[in-house]
């Protein structure tokens, strides 16, 4: 049955391509077919996962080769897939959350005349993301990696009549291409070092290679991961990507695609286990991003951008955990899954709010929506409790474990993660207050209302998952499930008992919540964003995304633009001028250049035949001599 795992990919792919090619008559059913394809893939994924549960630990990695993709020279890559403990979890997350978001989109995109195409792109995304996680070879993984990048490009720019959307789509693609430099070079290094890019073979053989190879590979893959997962220094595209329709933000830019970098690190655990330096780099990237994202999340008034900052930050947690090695891999995946639930839930909730507020994203124009959108409020509230880590909701379990493991690695890393938890509580509370609580600050002509059932049911489903996601940790199920892949970790003894640390975390979270309540309930919230000059440095920097775009402009964009302008000038005046100048002197070609403009085209044909004549004469001369 696992031979058929390619069907997981083929079903949404066929549906996506079909919907694209189908003409106008497909508009009536396109969304239903797209949703059905995703659901079908999910059901098949459940069947496969269930039969994996029935197998012994050793047999839980089921590989199948579909066909030889590339065989040229000494390069060989099979189109092969592996359904195992890790990819199985991802298949369920991608198709499960994906299907809920498809359902939600039926309502959210109801009035868009290009809805069929939207569903086609969503299906293609699902297919590419499944390729990414099921791939048995890094090059096949790269195929999925770029496929999700393409889907992301198409969906961020879905409303491409808006200049801002088109620019954001392009930016996301280009920044990701910088990350792809790392991925592509990494695969080349694998080929030159091991003669293969099979994930299993490379991770198995890495210990026989020199340590510098492991470090180089680790850093190259990390560069790729930084691009896809919006980690510092390639974080700048994610906030702009919020130009896409909100279901896209939920599916691609919160629950699944942006976590691909974490998947890559965990999947490449052999490489990262072999290099202390590469793991250290992962930890630093994760820690910096988790704090930077949280900082940005505190300052944004745009509800989607605040959530995007939060996504960066939460992926930072996952990255940090993945950098801890066997002690953290399982918790990285655990947090990735729970985050997939509660962040998709909150993004869809934000979409529901926007739906009721004439697509306004400005939280300063919200307020008091609690009573007007009770279901959205309740489901969003569960997501809120989950993300800030209130027991017993999902995020509490997963974040607690990461902070604990971080303290096991290093006190300062742990402290950073702990601080992040407090800031998370602060910005999420701020978001809740500004949106659902506080006083109304609505614009004129706004009539908030609850969204239709086709949108609220997915919210309820995700809210339930956000609340209960912690069950994966019951009797350490997820760590033991993944252990055959990620290796066994010796439990680090902490300076304080784990339960004390949990209490400390809870206290820090409470302080964060309390601070936000004090700060935003003390006086009415301004209905307009205060000017940059009237806010603190902290808020100003956060609003400007810590000046990441300015930095990119200064060190990459502008120099490239200047170089391009210079080269355009140089090509015309320098290269072309030089070559034609030499030609002028050598062959007096100025004659040639003048003549055709007077219409003597035939003389060139003559010249040509002259050339042939010269050839014949030369050969004759040599022969006779």
């Amino acid at each position, binding site marked *: 049955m696992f031979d058929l795992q390619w069907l997981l990919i083929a079903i949404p792919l066929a549906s996506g391509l079909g919907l694209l090619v189908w003409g106008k008559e497909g508009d009536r059913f396109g969304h239903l077919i797209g949703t059905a394809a995703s659901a079908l893939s999910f059901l098949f994924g459940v069947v496969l996962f269930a039969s994996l549960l029935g197998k012994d630990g050793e047999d839980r990695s089921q590989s199948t080769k579909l066909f030889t993709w590339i065989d040229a020279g000494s390069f060989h890559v099979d189109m092969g897939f592996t359904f195992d403990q890790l990819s199985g979890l991802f298949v369920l997350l991608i198709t499960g959350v994906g299907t809920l978001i498809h359902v939600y989109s039926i309502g959210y995109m109801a009035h868009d005349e290009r809805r069929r195409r939207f569903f086609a792109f969503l299906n293609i995304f699902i297919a590419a993301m499944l390729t990414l996680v099921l791939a048995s070879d890094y090059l096949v993984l790269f195929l999925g990696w770029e496929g999700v990048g393409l889907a992301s490009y198409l969906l961020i720019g879905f409303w491409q009549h*808006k200049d801002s959307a088109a620019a954001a789509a392009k930016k996301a693609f280009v920044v990701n*291409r910088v990350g*792809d430099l790392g991925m592509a070079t990494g695969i080349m290094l694998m080929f030159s070092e091991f003669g293969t890019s099979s994930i299993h073979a490379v991770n198995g053989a890495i210990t026989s290679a020199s340590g510098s190879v492991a470090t180089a590979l680790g850093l190259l893959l990390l560069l790729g991961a930084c691009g896809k997962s919006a980690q510092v220094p390639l974080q700048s595209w994610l906030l702009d990507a919020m130009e896409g329709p909100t279901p896209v933000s939920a599916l691609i830019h919160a629950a699944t695609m942006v976590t691909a970098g974490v998947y890559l690190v965990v999947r490449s655990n052999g490489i990262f286990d072999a290099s202390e330096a590469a793991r250290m780099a992962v930890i630093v990237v994760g820690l910096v991003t988790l704090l930077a994202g949280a900082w940005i999340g505190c300052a944004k008034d745009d509800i989607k951008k605040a959530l995007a900052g939060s996504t960066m930050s939460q992926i930072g947690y996952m990255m940090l955990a993945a950098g801890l090695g066997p002690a953290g891999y399982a918790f990285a995946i655990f947090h990735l899954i729970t985050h997939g639930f509660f962040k998709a839930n909150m993004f869809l909730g934000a979409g529901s709010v926007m739906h009721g507020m004439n697509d306004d994203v400005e939280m300063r124009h919200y307020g008091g929506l609690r009573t007007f959108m009770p279901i959205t409020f309740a489901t969003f509230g569960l997501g809120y409790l989950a993300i800030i880590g209130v027991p017993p909701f999902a995020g509490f379990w997963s974040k607690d474990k990461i902070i604990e493991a971080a303290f096991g690695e290093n006190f300062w890393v742990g402290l950073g993660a702990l601080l992040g938890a407090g800031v998370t509580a602060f910005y999420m509370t701020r978001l809740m207050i500004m949106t659902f609580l506080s006083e109304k600050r609505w614009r004129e002509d706004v009539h908030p209302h609850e969204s239709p059932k086709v949108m609220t049911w997915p919210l309820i489903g995700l809210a339930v998952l956000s609340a209960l996601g912690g069950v994966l940790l019951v009797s350490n199920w997820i760590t033991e499930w993944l252990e055959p892949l990620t290796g066994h970790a010796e439990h680090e003894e902490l300076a304080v008992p784990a339960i004390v640390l949990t209490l400390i975390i809870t206290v820090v979270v409470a302080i964060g919540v309390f601070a936000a309540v004090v700060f935003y309930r003390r006086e009415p919230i301004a209905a307009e964003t205060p000017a940059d000059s009237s806010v603190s440095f902290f808020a100003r920097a956060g609003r400007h995304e810590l000046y990441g775009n300015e930095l990119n402009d200064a060190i990459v964009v502008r120099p490239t633009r200047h170089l391009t302008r210079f080269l355009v000038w140089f090509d015309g005046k320098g290269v072309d001028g030089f070559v034609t100048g030499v030609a002028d002197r050598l062959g007096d070609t100025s004659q040639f250049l003048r003549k055709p403009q007077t219409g003597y085209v035939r003389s060139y044909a003559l010249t040509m035949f002259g050339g042939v004549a010269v050839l014949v004469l030369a050969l004759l001369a040599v022969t006779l001599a």
Partner: protein
Amino acid sequence: MILSILAATPIVGAVLLALLPREPAPHHRAKYVALGVSLITLVLSLVVMARFDQDAGGYQLTEKHEWIKVFGAYYSLGVNGIGITLILLTTILTPIVILAAFGDRLPDPKSTNAYFAWMLAVEGLAIGAFAATDAFLFYVLFEATLIPLYFLIGSFGGPNRSYAAVKFLIYNLVGGLLMLASIVGLYVISARQGQASFLLSDLQNLDFSTNTERLLFLGFMAAFAIKAPLWPLHTWLPDAAGQATPGTSVLMVSVIDKIGTFGMIRWCLGLFPGASDWASPVVITLAVISILYGALLAIGQDDIRRLIAFTSVSHFGFIILGIFAFTTTSLAGSTLYMFNHGLSTAALFLVTGMMIARRGSARISDFGGVQKIAPIMSGVLLVAGLSSLSLPGLAPFISEFLVLAGTFTRSIPAAAFATLGIVLAALYILIMYQRVMTGPLKAGNEGVSDLDHREMASLTPAIILIVGLGFFPQPLLNVINPAIDEVISHVGKGDPAPKTPVQIDAPATQEGGHE
């Protein structure tokens, strides 16, 4: 005989077209005759493909007749896996180009017959050049391709066409002259060492002194480097492509320029392996410069046709890099790259050509928001553009990655710098796409209607091949591989072995029944 028939068919068709009496617009007869001839040629080339034994290797379907006895020149044809791949590219692209050119508005409508006749002539001469196994025959055909292209650019292009055509001609004639000197030199040496002969198989047995080999190599290489075009000899291409009709540009860049890179493999590596090795550091450096320089210049263009020409400078850099890295992987990649680049550039030139004809301007800054009124055109442009930036899943990715992976085993810096090209490629395509297609509809673009059925019919085969070969490149690679092994063993350079080789044994592998 079949190769001769294949090459002669379009030539005969061209003569026929030239002799056909002119008819009033819309010149249906000339167009359909041209399309019919090119389709017959395509079918013939598929027959050739069927008769080619891809496992046997070597030159096949050979023909040999004495031609000019006093020079030792033979009319000698034969194809190996590389030649047949490029012949197939030629025969696939020509009907696509001719069908797309049905709508071209020519400066002199009465010259429709000549326009299509010259196109068929290009096809026939190119097939001949890819099949020639005699250096003299190859030289004559190589130079002869200049004639139809010269007239295609000079008579049917834009307002500056005369300047562009002459520049094209002079550059290529200079290259041809240098090659001519080497041809003469080859003759002298072969005459001294016995019977004068231009046959590839005889020339490969000649003994050269080191210096002679290098000089002769340089003559050939100069001609091919101008044709390919390699930095800094590339400046004729943007001018020519900026003035030519889209169809002419496709024939020039996708087909005829490939004779340059093809010639490097067959004639430079084939006749002068030692000198090729000697020159490789310089050539690799120039190739890497071409990749980055072409890409940066493409970013800076406002004329869409010049932009595509510069992307080709960058892509030719990849092809040449793969050839001179001397690994089976990179060389197989380069050969496949020639085919894939032909397809993707054809799609780009043709779809933008249709767009430019409707708008009456080739300036990117004149477009904006076209996607709204021409979604199919926009979709085709996006797919063609994504193939140009080598998106995985589309054909050019495979060839580009093979080139880079092979080069990496030979020279990490060359591969690393070349890889920067993938970021620049994203910029030049996506900036162009954004400015032309997205945003609100810009004034002046109201007349840009979507593709009609004929235009879709001409572009669809290219798009299908681009996607299909992205997932299933093996049918072509199986043809290419044996020939590559022969070239590399002739050059005497084996692939660098992996430092920590791995026995591939995936656990619990179950062979799916889909082999």
